[in-house]
């Protein structure tokens, strides 16, 4: 064991670190020698080459620490490892691994910083971390901000390459041949005489030697897997009902828990649980933080008993009525609430004439509502807490759970699971903390706590509501000035506050997608205001850009219209980043933009850069007598390298459906301090019959390799609004759009 640990410690991928962002980001310096978590518990004859590869005499295990929330992260990570390790898909197992410093996310560190993606200068990259960001949390080990590919791309290929070369060295020593004469293929080292030695047969030998370091990565032209359509490793299980999500796990002696938590996030004023206690299968009912827990022998019995509790709640700490939430947003456009002013090109005040185009835009709160309701299975003993759930921030979760149960963080064991969706919801820790609090009351007994869907909606921390006040001006058929003032509560501040961390610094997410828009407008200003005192909010697929992207691209369309220019041509003229321009040119070509359309049809275009990825979309709608039908969407996104074209297309299509569906019909509103929407009947999103044809093109000119889970979301809503304007002449400045138009 000591030997293995020593080897593991000495084999951290220095080359990979340098490539993948081994630069100092404030205090979040990438550790150069993190302990390999796989070294613990390694059996005799088993080898681990780095924190991502483990081989013993029976099997090869690849560790894929980025959470799989449906975006295909496991398959993506395995593909990168297998590419350099010369494994065929299907030759290995995957595990999420345990929370560990080695799985630091180095790609996100720049995400909270006030520098445009195009600004890669030393100064920009060297003065990071003054602005509080999600990176500070996620950087510990996290999945979010569409960063999994960016974090993994070099690091995991390097991990595969060093493991491969070490196995070759082991084979060379064992068989007395020159390492240079060896090759690898399909999970085996091939000797000069053609004999194939499976990696598993070399595990014990490899464990006994110093691993090879600093292995150059293969050229793109040599890739077998990257960029090729492959079959996702989880697809068969997900097509046969055999993939176990956390909600499907069963432990011996397990009890089921349901909760009634304050829908006002407040305390309990009074309750009567007598009826619930006497219901069949109910084991216990007891108070927990902000509510009550029911233990029963079956999920449904627990649900029913929770519903049967008669309870009254304390008042909410935020306004009881939705109108007052909006008033708070309206009142925050003041110097006192100014959060950032990240874009101020030219002289906006002078450039705006008295008759400038002016408009106000709004986006509502929206719930995450992944289809697997929030739940966790927890077993607390005196010296350990075991958690089975799907979560995006394993190390943060360890700390939060430990705080609830009184254990040390290192005593919390997270068995991360495939998630039945997340959309940002699994960055939150509350649902696990609730389960841990209940399980802590019945130490030794595993407790599976499941939110009823109604509880899931009530307890969701939604996407922030927000407003934009815009002004723009034109001259000689061109956009000359654009000024956007954006106000919303800070999603990152709200999240950090719940984690008990200091909420220092502004939140770049409030104007995300707007301030960094790759447009060289002569006079261009974006100011962001942080609204205090409204409902707690969170990250929702694409975070700030889901609102601010709509603000800028909807309003810019109005200004372009006032200029009498073509929406796509004028955007191309304004665009000052070649990578972004490429996406606009691609959708123009794909959609044959400019062709004459039949009566009643209209097209809109929008382009937003979020998480470093520019995405352009053209939406085509038809104004029918029964309402608006969304017919087609053309999408182009540039992520540098498309790792898996099938998964890329699926993610893009899903993100477009997400962006369109919620823009059409979804919001959360508060009344009496409680969310008024309790289930999918009131927050539907898109249904299959409403889904347009979605044509996708992945471009690969970007200087960096980036992720695609979120970036196609922000352009969808404004492209739809702009298309509806083109078809009907009606400007939609407020989501959900079905407040103003009917969709079929």
């Amino acid at each position, binding site marked *: 064991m000591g030997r293995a640990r020593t080897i593991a410690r000495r084999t951290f991928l220095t080359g990979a670190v340098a490539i993948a962002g081994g630069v100092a980001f404030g205090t979040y310096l990438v550790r150069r020698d993190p302990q390999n978590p796989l070294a613990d518990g390694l059996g005799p004859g088993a080898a681990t080459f780095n924190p991502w590869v483990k081989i013993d005499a029976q099997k090869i295990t690849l560790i894929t620490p980025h959470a799989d929330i449906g975006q295909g992260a496991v398959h993506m990570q395995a593909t990168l490892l297998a590419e350099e390790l010369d494994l065929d898909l299907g030759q290995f197992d995957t595990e999420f691994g345990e929370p560990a410093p080695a799985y630091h996310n180095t790609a996100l560190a720049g995400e909270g910083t006030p520098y445009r993606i195009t600004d890669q200068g030393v100064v920009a990259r060297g003065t990071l971390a003054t602005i509080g960001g999600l990176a500070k949390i996620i950087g510990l080990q996290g999945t979010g901000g569409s960063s999994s590919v960016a974090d993994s791309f070099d690091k995991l290929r390097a991990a595969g390459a060093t493991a491969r070369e070490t196995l070759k060295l082991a084979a060379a020593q064992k068989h007395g041949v020159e390492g240079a004469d060896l090759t690898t293929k399909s999970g085996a080292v091939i000797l000069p005489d053609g004999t194939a030695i499976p990696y598993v047969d070399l595990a014990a030998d490899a464990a006994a030697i110093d691993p090879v370091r600093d292995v150059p990565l293969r050229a793109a032209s040599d890739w077998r897997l990257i960029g090729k359509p492959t079959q996702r490793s989880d697809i068969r299980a997900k097509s046969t009902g055999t993939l176990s999500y956390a909600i499907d796990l*069963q432990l011996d002696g397990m009890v089921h828990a349901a909760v009634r938590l304050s829908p006002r996030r407040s305390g309990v004023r009074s309750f009567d649980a007598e009826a619930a206690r006497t219901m069949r299968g109910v084991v216990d009912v007891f108070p927990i933080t902000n509510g009550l827990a029911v233990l029963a022998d079956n999920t449904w019995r627990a649900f029913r008993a929770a519903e049967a509790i008669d309870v009254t709640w304390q008042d909410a700490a935020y306004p009881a009525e939705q109108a007052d939430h909006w008033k708070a947003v309206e009142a925050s456009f003041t110097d006192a609430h100014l959060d950032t002013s990240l874009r101020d090109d030219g002289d906006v005040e002078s450039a705006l004439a008295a008759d400038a185009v002016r408009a106000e835009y709004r986006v509502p709160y929206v719930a995450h509502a992944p289809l697997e309701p929030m739940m966790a299975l927890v077993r607390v003993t005196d010296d350990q807490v075991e958690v089975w759930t799907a979560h995006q921030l394993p190390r943060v979760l360890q700390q939060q759970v430990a705080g609830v149960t009184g254990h040390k963080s290192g005593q919390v064991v997270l068995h991360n699971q495939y998630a039945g969706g997340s959309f940002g919801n699994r960055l939150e820790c509350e649902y696990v903390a609730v389960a841990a609090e209940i399980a802590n009351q019945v130490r030794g007994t595993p407790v599976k706590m499941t939110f009823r869907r109604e509880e899931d909606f009530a307890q969701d921390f939604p996407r922030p509501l927000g407003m934009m006040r815009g002004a723009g001006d034109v001259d000689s058929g061109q956009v000359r000035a654009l000024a956007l003032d954006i106000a919303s509560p800070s999603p990152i501040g709200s999240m950090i506050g719940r984690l008990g961390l200091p909420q220092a610094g502004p939140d770049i997410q409030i104007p995300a997608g707007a301030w960094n828009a790759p447009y060289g407008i002569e006079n261009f200003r974006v100011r962001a205001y942080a609204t205090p005192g409204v409902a707690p909010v969170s990250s929702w697929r694409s975070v700030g850009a889901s609102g601010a992207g709509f603000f800028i691209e909807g309003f810019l369309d109005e200004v372009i219209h006032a200029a009498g220019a073509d929406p796509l041509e004028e955007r191309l003229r304004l665009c000052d980043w070649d990578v972004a321009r490429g996406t606009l040119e691609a959708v123009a070509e794909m959609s044959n933009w400019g062709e004459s359309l039949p009566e009643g049809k209209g097209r809109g275009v929008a382009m937003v850069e979020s998480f470093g990825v520019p995405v352009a979309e053209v939406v085509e709608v038809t104004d029918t007598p029964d309402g608006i039908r969304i017919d087609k969407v053309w999408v182009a996104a540039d992520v540098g390298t498309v790792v898996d074209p099938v998964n890329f297309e699926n993610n893009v299509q899903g993100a477009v459906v997400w962006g369109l569906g919620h823009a059409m019909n979804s919001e959360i509103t508060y009344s009496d301090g409680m969310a008024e929407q309790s289930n999918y009947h009131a927050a539907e999103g898109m249904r299959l019959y409403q889904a347009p044809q979605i044509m996708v093109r992945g471009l690969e000119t970007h200087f960096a390799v980036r992720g695609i889970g979120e970036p196609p979301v922000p352009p969808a809503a404004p492209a739809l609004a702009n298309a509806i304007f083109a078809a009907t002449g009606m400007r939609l400045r407020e989501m959900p759009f079905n407040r103003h138009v009917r969709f079929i």
Partner: protein
Amino acid sequence: MKLRVNGKDHHVDVEDDMPLLWVLRDELGLMGTKYGCGIAQCGACTVHMDGIAVRSCQLAAADVDGDITTIEGLGTPESLHAVQEAWVETQVAQCGYCQSGQIMQVASFLDMNPEPTDDQIDAAMSGNLCRCGAYPRIRAAIRSAAGKMAAA
């Protein structure tokens, strides 16, 4: 009470009004059928009763009056049903949580209507919510499955 599920008889001691969904999951341990909404809005709990798709969150245990088939009884990873084959080949799933219900709905739908029009697909499948938005692939996989079943 007695239930026949995937060709096997089971005796369960549950309340008359316990939804079949929870009998399957928590009493019989058949976890392929999912809970999503509990009110027939999402379709994740879809199973067959005598071959007809039914939302198991809506069907009280005492109202079960036919043979139940769940996703586990439709096909297995080693022996896929034609719809599952199409689902694998088309790579429909993202998070995958809704897919048991989608597949059960499609299997019943194609059994009754083997050559559906696109409009009929849109009508049959819009009660099954996919939060990941895999709808374009669901449509493609249904057409592929219909083709496979016609050829079989």
